[in-house]
């Protein structure tokens, strides 16, 4: 995958399009990554992306789908912590896509 260029700054991505350096993340970077996926980020996306980053800070790993759903349900309630809502927001692969947009490593337990 090619790198990301934002305001003349080159941001390295790995072969799957995840940030090579997690500290490169910013809301601008998230928007640029989302654009590559033909997604525009709404408030509903942002609250999940921020939760993803909280999850990573707390557990030092990216969640697989089930733990992501549980974590969202825990923090935002069951009307958001369910697979229907998350699949709708992130094109059917919430764990992978939300991790990518939130600047986290690719979830390793996502086979």
């Amino acid at each position, binding site marked *: 995958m090619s790198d990301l260029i934002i305001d003349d700054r080159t941001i390295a991505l790995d072969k799957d399009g995840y940030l090579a350096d997690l500290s490169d993340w910013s809301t601008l970077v998230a928007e640029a990554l989302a654009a590559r996926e033909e997604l525009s980020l709404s408030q509903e996306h942002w609250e999940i992306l921020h939760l993803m980053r909280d999850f990573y800070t707390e557990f*030092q790993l990216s969640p697989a789908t089930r*733990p992501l759903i549980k974590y969202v349900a825990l923090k935002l309630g069951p009307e958001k912590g369910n697979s229907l809502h998350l699949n709708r927001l992130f094109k059917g692969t919430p764990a992978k896509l939300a991790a990518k947009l939130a600047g986290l490593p690719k979830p390793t*337990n996502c086979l």
Partner: protein
Amino acid sequence: MAKSLLLVSRQAPWSGPGAREALDIALAGGAFDLPIGMLFLDDGVFQLAPTQYPEAIQQKDLTANLQALPLFGVDSLYVAQRSLDERGLADTTLDLPVQCLDDAALRDLIDRYDLVITL
């Protein structure tokens, strides 16, 4: 009904891959909703000691990863009382909600599971 699996984690956290491998099996199995239990035995109980700072020796923080077990559906967590006693951890507040079991209770525990992996 999937077979139940007990992971016995008996390696200290920072000296080799054993502790990480046991945890990865637990997280992967939990993500797929398999009935998994995890027992910390022998030096494995050092994974539960509080306020460790593995960054000092350039290691990733396994103890943070361990906290994710309940979210991954692995909430049957046990520790060997004898291993804690031997290592001066008997009165320490451990880093994970685990059930302390004596040898007799551990024998029953191992007996209840269909499969056992000891790492």
